[in-house]
């Protein structure tokens, strides 16, 4: 009898989950094996043709590589900054509540609004960065127009946006560390760096893994800034996988190929999920 109640209560949420998560996942997978249907010709089964096309698509390889650089550029720095911020805000920093507010503010601002403001930092000549570098006699630079610097610019914004958010998780973890621990280490003559490396960093390990997973997911999900700043350009130099999927589906109107690209994204996320269950101590966050 209780079993029926259980299912009845889960049913409303389950319906939505099936309709907008499981069904589309399966449908995406199915669509990736079909050609793009047109008014004249219905979609037909083409086997792995879409995937072969993808492997020959230079743009795909470029956005995939960009995404790797984007992840490698944002994740370590934002995690390191998050730890530093949390230690400062949790320590004896003067006026620390204001510093905490400063670090955290980017988290609650929409990426679109943030990109509008950052655009102005990067604008050549009159932009703030160029105005600043001019003081040192460095010539002006088209930061977002140069394929060599554009991805770096996107990475900087993402770090700025994420670090304060990750700080929160470290802050929560640090608050459960008893102050006696540091006192004891001090009495033993351990340096602060040694204490951090051998004690605190170990205690923060579960948090780091949790943050790491969020950061990896974010590096595939956070593409909003591209819409304002670069539209993926110049020459796809700043395009990322999800942005490319959006372009293929809604600008080039090729849903079949967009589904194929989505399958790659889903595969990456599945790998992360598996990695999480294998490597992460499940008791920490998912008991």
């Amino acid at each position, binding site marked *: 009898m209780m079993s029926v109640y259980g299912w009845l209560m889960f049913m409303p949420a389950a319906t939505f989950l099936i309709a907008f*998560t499981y069904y589309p996942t399966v449908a995406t997978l199915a669509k990736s094996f079909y050609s793009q249907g047109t008014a004249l010709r219905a979609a037909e089964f083409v086997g792995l043709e879409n995937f072969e096309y993808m492997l020959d698509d230079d743009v795909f390889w470029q956005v995939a590589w960009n995404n790797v650089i984007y992840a490698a550029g944002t994740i370590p720095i934002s995690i390191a*900054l998050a730890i530093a911020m949390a230690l400062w805000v949790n320590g004896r920093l003067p006026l620390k509540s204001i510093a905490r507010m400063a670090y955290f503010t980017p988290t609650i601002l929409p990426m*679109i609004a943030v990109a509008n403001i950052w655009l102005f930092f990067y604008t050549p000549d009159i932009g703030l960065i160029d105005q600043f570098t001019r003081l040192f006699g460095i010539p002006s630079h088209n930061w977002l127009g140069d394929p060599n610097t554009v991805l770096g610019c996107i990475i900087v914004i993402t770090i700025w946006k994420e670090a304060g958010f990750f700080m929160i998780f470290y802050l*929560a973890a640090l608050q459960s560390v008893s102050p006696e621990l540091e006192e004891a280490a001090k009495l033993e003559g351990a340096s602060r760096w040694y204490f951090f490396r051998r004690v605190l960093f170990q205690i923060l390990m579960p948090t780091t893994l949790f943050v790491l997973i969020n950061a990896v997911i974010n590096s595939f999900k956070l593409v909003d800034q591209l819409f304002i700043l670069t539209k993926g350009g110049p020459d796809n130099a700043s395009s990322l996988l999800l942005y490319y999927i959006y372009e293929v589906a809604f600008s080039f109107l090729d849903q079949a190929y967009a589904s194929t690209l989505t399958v790659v994204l889903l595969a990456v*996320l599945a790998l992360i999920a598996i990695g999480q269950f294998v490597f992460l101590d499940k008791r920490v966050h998912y008991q």
Partner: protein
Amino acid sequence: MSQTRTPFRLIQSLEYTGAWLLAILWLSPLIYAFWSAFHPAEYATRFDLMAPLTLENFRTAWDQAPFAQYFLNTFILVSSILLAQLVLCTLAAFAFARIEFHGKSVAFVFVLLQLMIMPEILIVENYTTMSKLNLVDTITGVGLPYMASAFGIFLLRQTFKTIPKELEDAARVEGCSLMEILLKVYVPLARPTYIAYGLVSVSYHWNNFLWPLVITNSVDTRPLTVGLAIFGAPESGVEWSIITAGTLLAVAPLLIAFLLFQRQFVQSFMHAGIK
């Protein structure tokens, strides 16, 4: 002793300076936005302390784009998502926390899957679904994929599990039905979690962009973020100071709420994060 203390002090003050420089750097985009929005356009790139203040940019921005409509759309969107999430997640979380049913653990793993595969990833297929349901370009269409939230179910389940079973038993002795137990015992005791989840959900959906961009195409349905993206696009040719004024307008409600209830916000994100 004094020999070791001096370098320690020096290192510490260097560290604090670094911490503060970082804080200023972190606030600088926002500070710049305020500067540019409250000064006439010719001061947008010139920093003169004597520059006159003005509200003209805000008036122009407000007149140039239908911000009132965008605000209304975002408000309807965010509150309907939150309402649906609270109802759906409460029911499901209660089932997972306190009722034994067949296939429960498998079902729960499926729920957790959504933590990985978020609706953002599935924009292509969900767009097809919405066009079949005739929901393209409706606020309902924007909200539907988010209404069952794995994160909410998980968070509430963890909270419900910490509530002593004795309270439930006592309520049952009093003759309460299952629904009454949920509404009179569990929901009130989980209030901090509801507040935390509510804040996280509202700020997420206030700021969400990609899916709303895909699914909306008219002024009547566009949320603020999409409206702002169109308004601020470089090809629209709008002046800087007006864009920054529009940007500040769009973020104002959330920013003001954050500044007023800073502690609550930070604690909510923390609470939601460590469960």
